[in-house]
């Protein structure tokens, strides 16, 4: 009855993990329960809320809709991989400073959706920002301070050439 475990290699935040997973387990569950990366939040497990957003080869995906076995061979970025060398990413810094975080449950997914946007489009206008995070629900902030934080971070990232090259 029980499906056999499958050994896969997951590359998360530049680190390879060889783990045995249940084939029906989602990436979200494996990240949280097997790799201890609990920054990825589960709000609905149906792909509706965006709290579990991670980057798969730089593109935002709902990790509750991706099976862990499907994520093999892809570069996965979780919220734990956003800060580097103990320094908050400019997006994280902007979220902190602008009050874009209240309960914080949407924040990891929101930040990664914003990162994907800025990597793709360093100078988004407000409409493009709102569109990019429209799959990430937030019940606390009314989104305004999130939008302001992303605008601010975009300015700072593009004003700093070195940072602008970040992947």
């Amino acid at each position, binding site marked *: 009855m029980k499906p056999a475990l499958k050994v896969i290699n997951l590359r998360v935040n530049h680190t390879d993990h060889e783990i045995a997973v249940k084939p029906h387990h989602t990436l979200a569950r494996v990240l949280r329960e097997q790799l201890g990366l609990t920054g990825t939040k589960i709000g609905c497990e149906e792909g509706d809320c965006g709290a579990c957003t991670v980057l798969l080869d730089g593109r935002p995906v709902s990790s509750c809709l991706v099976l862990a076995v499907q994520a093999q061979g892809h570069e996965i970025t979780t919220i734990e991989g956003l800060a580097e060398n103990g320094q908050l990413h400019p997006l994280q810094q902007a979220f902190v400073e602008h*009050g874009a975080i209240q309960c914080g*449950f949407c924040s990891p997914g929101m930040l990664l959706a914003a990162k994907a946007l800025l990597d793709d489009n360093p100078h988004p206008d407000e409409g493009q920002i709102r569109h990019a995070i429209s799959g990430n629900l937030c019940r606390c902030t*009314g989104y305004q301070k999130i939008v302001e934080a992303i605008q601010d971070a975009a300015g700072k990232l593009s004003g700093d050439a070195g940072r602008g090259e970040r992947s």
Partner: protein
Amino acid sequence: MSKPQVLGSRAPRLDAPAKATGQALYTDDIVKPGMLHAAILRSPLAHARILNIDTSRARALPGVKAVLTPEQTPDTWFGVSPARYDERVLCREKALYVGDEIAAVAAIDRDTAREALELIEVDYEPLEVVFDARQALAEGAPQIHPLYPGNLNAEVHQEFGDVAAARKLARVIKTGRLESEMQDAAFLEPQAAIASFDLHGRLELITSTQSVHYIQRAVAMVLGLTMDRVRVIKPYVGGGFGPKAGPASHELIACLLARQTGRPVKLVFDREEVFLHSRARHKFFHEMTLGADENGQLLFLEHEALLDGGAYSSFGIATVYYAGSLLGGPYRLPSMKYDGRRAVTNKPSCGAQRGHGGVIARALFERLMDELAQELGQDPIELRLKNVMHTGETTCNDLNMSSLGMRECLEAVYENSDWKLKRGRLPRGRGIGVACGFFVSGAGYPIYRSDTYHSTATVRLLEDGGGVLVETASAEIGQGSDTTMAMIAAETIGVPLEMVRVVSGDSDYGVDLGAYSSRQTLMTGHAVRQAAEQVRQVVVEVVAGLLDLSPDELVIRDGLVLAADGCELDITDLRVRYTREHRGWSDNPQQGPLTFREASRLAYLERGSIVATGRYKPPPLGGKYKGAAVGTSPAYGCSAQVAEVNVDLETGQVTVEAVTGAHDCGRAINLTSVEGQMQGSVSMGLGEALFERVQFDPRGRVSNANLADYKIPTALDMPPVKALVVETNEPNGPFGAKEVGEGAIMPTIPAILNALYDATGVRFEKLPVSAERVLAALKGEKLPDEANLGPGFCRLPPERKD
């Protein structure tokens, strides 16, 4: 008082870095050794007698460690308020709604627990159901809950002033109706709990809650434990908005399964369970008549309300009182009559949600204000300004506005929105509307009758000097209360915010009633301030003693101990003493004034650990009439909003294009957080006005129990919200502060409804105002759910369709 150093700033929240990096732990992020996973079997029927539960196949499933059935649970009623303890951990005789808890399983993992649920066989005898509150109260309706004959859960009949006499004087009288739908709080973090017992039989419950204190009491009562053997811990919480304020079956189930198995047990809701458990916004029916004299001065309000409560009471008794009492202000209203009833139905239970009880009533009242203005030929803002209460006035139902910046809020939105440019000048399809509201700054009384303090706090100076630790059982649920308490402590003592650490949300830290009724800033803030002031005094006394000064000759400012008169102090001996204790430290203060770090170390050396406690309880409040407690508060926040809408006349699609809001929060502790509460309130109100509704199929099952079909606003639905912080000095608040978290939602729905009228000429009587509803209205038609919207609709049962 000298100028605040910390308060009124835009200090970043203390918890933001942890939340931005994924390090902040929420309940489901916590793992305990040997932990089991639990799942709940829920009734598939809306009303059914439980004849038999066969768990043998479930127990036989490998990995299953325990199956909890009703007879294994204490036969103890619990709930929110003792007069309406009407729930038990698992259903005994009957299930009362689809989702009611029947049994539970603990297993080695979640998959196994869920698989086991499917192996539990329950024989049900289906009973007659009733889903409509009016039908539930009609003669011959099936009896739902044994405690509520005729399905009447609560009724309120109040009259203040002489409404009949006032009616005779009125020159303009407006009557209206508004019916809403049950709504969901849609917080992002589903409920979760982890229970474990230690070898001494002490229970630790980690849970996503708004009130560790209320949960601790319920758990102790139901499990038959003394309070000292129950510790409730609230980690970070992913939003609450009301439904997480009361004790819930799943918390008790986790505790009972932990007791049965001797292992930690985790129980996490899926999103559907969030909808089924609900305890969120009621479905309201309101009918009101509002009268004014020829100048537009309000004279009376007659108000009838019916609340569809679902199966159990939850906070619903408070809700039905709030639905009446929260109309007493913010206008001078000399007389008011209120008849409210709450019915039980075979649906999920409703309870408290942001703006508890007052939101839909406020929406209708503010619409009638607009109708009065229209008939009198007055600008809606002008009519409101004519009627607003001022600081120091008391409502006809005995609520004292110890500070009230209502006029200032209205003036602020008038000046800062496009009102002057656009009101009365917009083409069809575009509209602008205004509304006001007010809300308690913490409930005046606990939810159980008690002389308890509402908040206690402990402030401790770390013995090695330099750190301030604030301990409180208050609940940081995302609103920012930890940062608020840190700022209050820092301001009181005179140290930078970075020196303060807050630990909270743990019943071991004292009593705090938690995060509901918009109460943390005022009530916990008082307790923290009081404790912090005492530790400040000790430090000052010790330093003064060592310097041969009197304590009032010293001040602490920005982490430095200074002479009050600005002279330089000779602190050489004190610094030598501190430095001698810290040989090898590289960062000992070398020059300049005495630091707080040095001073607090010296205070410890003289006095031992410097610890102080603070406490707060509101003074006796309110009138003597039945229900007078609900609506009382030491202070009231108030707000005004202007909303602009665009209606697509072809499709009925409504877009809210701008909202300008002003809120009087007393003295703002943290401006960024105040704005955040205002903007978040607008988003919840906008969703409730335009698209949020829990839908049911004919068998009483929630048919949109997910966040795709239950629509909450996305970033694309939200307009820019201009948040104007209006500051008054609240005499009953710590540093003049009062609430913002709930009050700011009050004007949103009516401002949008009034703007919709401006755009379309339609007074919508049913929420949410979906595109379909707008389109039907534009064609002069009604949707099927508007068929019963006639006079007396709160009382008359609609035609049954079965």
